[in-house]
């Protein structure tokens, strides 16, 4: 029994996160070859990345939720709810700082509701969050009706549209947050608990891990991320929000995490995957747009990506087995 497993280059090069990087490069190369003028034009890459940053905080939160083997379908509705809180308070002339914090606090509160129902009441997270998604968005629709909130702090749009030396500001913030999440999931005891719960919640309980509390904590983090996402989202939308916005964002976030290698049944994957996949999705959607694919067809893409991402591990197993069988016959 040796303590250290030898680090192998081949192993490193074929792990899922690396495959995602190849995929990202491949899309870039295709785009480069198809539209060289556009690709090298200044601002193209920047705007592609900016276009994909509006849901990035949701992706980070969702990765933790999915790692536990749970899901949060209500995050987009939660995000819109947070935007509404901020917007309504701004309309009443409350100081901007308070409005932003109140928005995030709303996210935490709604996340806590999810977390209590999933963790302490023990309901299945799919049902809880689908119901709450309808609930949260329903309340927003009742309050806002067809009105559009337009009064948001300036830094919202700056965050989404500005850049520092050609680097999108949103991406910088995203990568900073992503770094924190990498540390949380890959380095801390809290992250390890998520892996353990995602793999076997019963063993986790028997190992003295407070599964309920941990689940609640993750949904609280998800709530914070919904609050932060509202800043990215409203900024991206040019500083306005209505009750019908952001529909389907939760599915994008789930698809990105699944593509990033976070198993939908929990316990598998690394934080790097969803981070890389966020960029893949941005480039993919933009490239399709350039190819003249209809905007509605792009939604189909999200569905396809999710399906394929969930399928891949299964296909892989069978594929490798059949390849091996064939080799043995030869």
């Amino acid at each position, binding site marked *: *029994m*040796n*303590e250290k*497993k030898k680090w192998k280059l081949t192993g490193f090069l074929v792990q899922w996160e690396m495959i995602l990087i190849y995929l990202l490069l491949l899309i870039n190369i295709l785009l480069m070859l198809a539209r060289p003028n556009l690709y090298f034009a200044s601002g193209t890459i920047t705007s592609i990345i900016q276009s994909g940053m509006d849901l990035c905080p949701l992706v980070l939160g969702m990765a933790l939720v999915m790692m536990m083997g749970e899901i949060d379908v209500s995050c987009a509705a939660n995000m819109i709810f947070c935007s509404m809180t901020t917007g309504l308070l701004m309309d009443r002339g409350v100081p901007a700082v308070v409005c932003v914090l109140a928005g995030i606090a709303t996210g935490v509160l709604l996340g806590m509701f999810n977390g209590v129902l999933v963790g302490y009441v023990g309901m299945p997270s799919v049902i809880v969050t689908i119901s709450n998604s309808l609930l949260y968005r329903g309340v927003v629709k009742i309050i806002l009706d067809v009105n559009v909130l337009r009064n948001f702090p300036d830094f919202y749009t700056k965050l989404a549209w500005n850049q520092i030396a050609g680097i999108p500001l949103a991406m910088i913030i995203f990568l900073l947050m992503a770094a924190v999440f990498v*540390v949380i999931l890959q*380095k*801390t*005891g*809290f992250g*390890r*608990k998520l*892996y*353990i719960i995602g*793999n*076997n919640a*019963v*063993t*986790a*309980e*028997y*190992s*003295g*891990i*407070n599964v309920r509390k941990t689940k609640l904590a993750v949904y609280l983090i998800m709530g914070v991320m919904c609050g932060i996402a509202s800043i990215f989202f409203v900024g991206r939308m040019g500083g306005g929000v209505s009750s019908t916005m952001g529909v389907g964002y939760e599915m994008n976030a789930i698809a990105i995490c699944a593509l990033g290698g976070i198993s939908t049944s929990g*316990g*598998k994957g690394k934080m790097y995957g969803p981070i890389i996949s966020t960029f893949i999705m941005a480039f993919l959607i933009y490239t399709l747009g350039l190819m003249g694919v209809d905007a509605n067809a792009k939604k189909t893409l999200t569905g396809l990506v999710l399906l394929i991402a969930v399928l891949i591990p299964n296909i892989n197993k069978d594929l490798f087995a059949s390849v*091996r069988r064939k080799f043995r016959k030869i």
Partner: protein
Amino acid sequence: MGDYILELKDVVKTFGGVQALKGVSFQLKPGEIHALMGENGAGKSTFIKVITGVHQPDSGTMLLEGEQVTFRSPLESARMGIAAIYQHVTAFPDLTVTENIFMGQEIKNKMGFYNWKLMNQKAKELIAPLSPTLDVRKPMSALSVAEQQLVEIAKALSRNARIMIMDEPTASLTNHECEELYRITENLRDQGVSIIFITHKFEDMYRLASRVTVFRDAEYIGCWDVDQITNHDLISKMVGRELNQMYPEKTAQIGQVVFEVEGISKEGYFKDVSFDVRQGEIVALTGLVGAGRTEVCQSIFGIMPPDTGSLKLNGQTIHVRSPKDAFRFGIGMLPEDRQIQGLINELPIYQNVTSAAMDKFQRYGIINVEQEKEAALGFCQKIQLKAESIQAPPSSLSGGNQQKVVFAKLLNCDLKVLILDEPTKGIDVGAKSSIYEIMNELASGGYAIIMVSSEMPEVLGMADRIVVMKAGRVTGTFDKGEATQEMILEASLRQKEAGA
């Protein structure tokens, strides 16, 4: 070769690079009960799957009544009258007994609808000789494990099985239920069914079988008449080495009372249970399955806290409301089902070992992985875990070594009281004795140990004191010297009034 109803010659089966069967042979006489024994991983399960057509052998021949056959699926073997009753019952838990029995061969009326009335009646007829009182309209999940097995047997009979393969049917049965199963098995034999009986228990073999075949390391070791081989020889054939002493010499010094359970009750599970454990002592909690032993342990460990009664650690009353509390007080538990409750099969061994006390390796919440691995490696070496690497997942280990991983997990916590719920369940003979060694060492190290066990030899061999339970109550307490198998059995069947 008309003597045999089923004969296999030089069957080879490989999975990936692993040889699961290295040219094994086997002969089954008509109307005999043939025991198949061997350690876990000896290839018994693969062998059965080859017979039933779940797996196809790479080479070798199979003769059914002298004619060569090949089965491409379990359906084909079932058609030829071969039925297997697996260790883990494979029924549909939410469907009724009738539905399970007639699954795939439903009787239809003229309109093409299912004729449930007729099927219920036929199911009743099939079940009646096995268990006259069983209601065939009940869902499978409402039955005991023993009853579920009877349903599987009835199902096999409904398909006119001539050869029945039973894979460790007695593994989770009580003594009484075993007797019942023996009787039924003998009846089947008398009706001319040939039976392959896979088991770990010598009682099963002596009671039922006329011949025994032993597999070891995927190889055929031999076949003997049961009355011509001694227990000792058989064990050494199975293990491949001499096994001098199953139970180690006790070395622990028994000290002060560490842990006291005082009159704890839990509605519907157990009532007024009291016992204590001293330092270095192993107290066995025994009784029939369903006597409430596991539930008592789960209560102590905080999985389901008791309604009334108290726990005392070193004389101080403690309140354990969750496993987390239990660990904080120094009470650890090795759960009964290591796959479901003890292991995280996808994570590396070292992370399994440290999972119950990660705080030790954290600073500001960040895990020091090097320190963690070093500690895990230390514990794994201490209990002589056989693994390729501590980076490997526990799913790559044998049952005995998986259990050692759970032991290492407990060692990593600073514990005083260890609860071991069926520590050798599903572990082969060779690995069992090393588990006993570990228990002995732990006792010597000053742990107070509570062991739940259904195996009488294990209880008598390991325990310093024996607490017997029946239907949720303590019905007897015995010291090591005075206890006999008969006394324990008597106490575990005794009616109501709480003893000693």
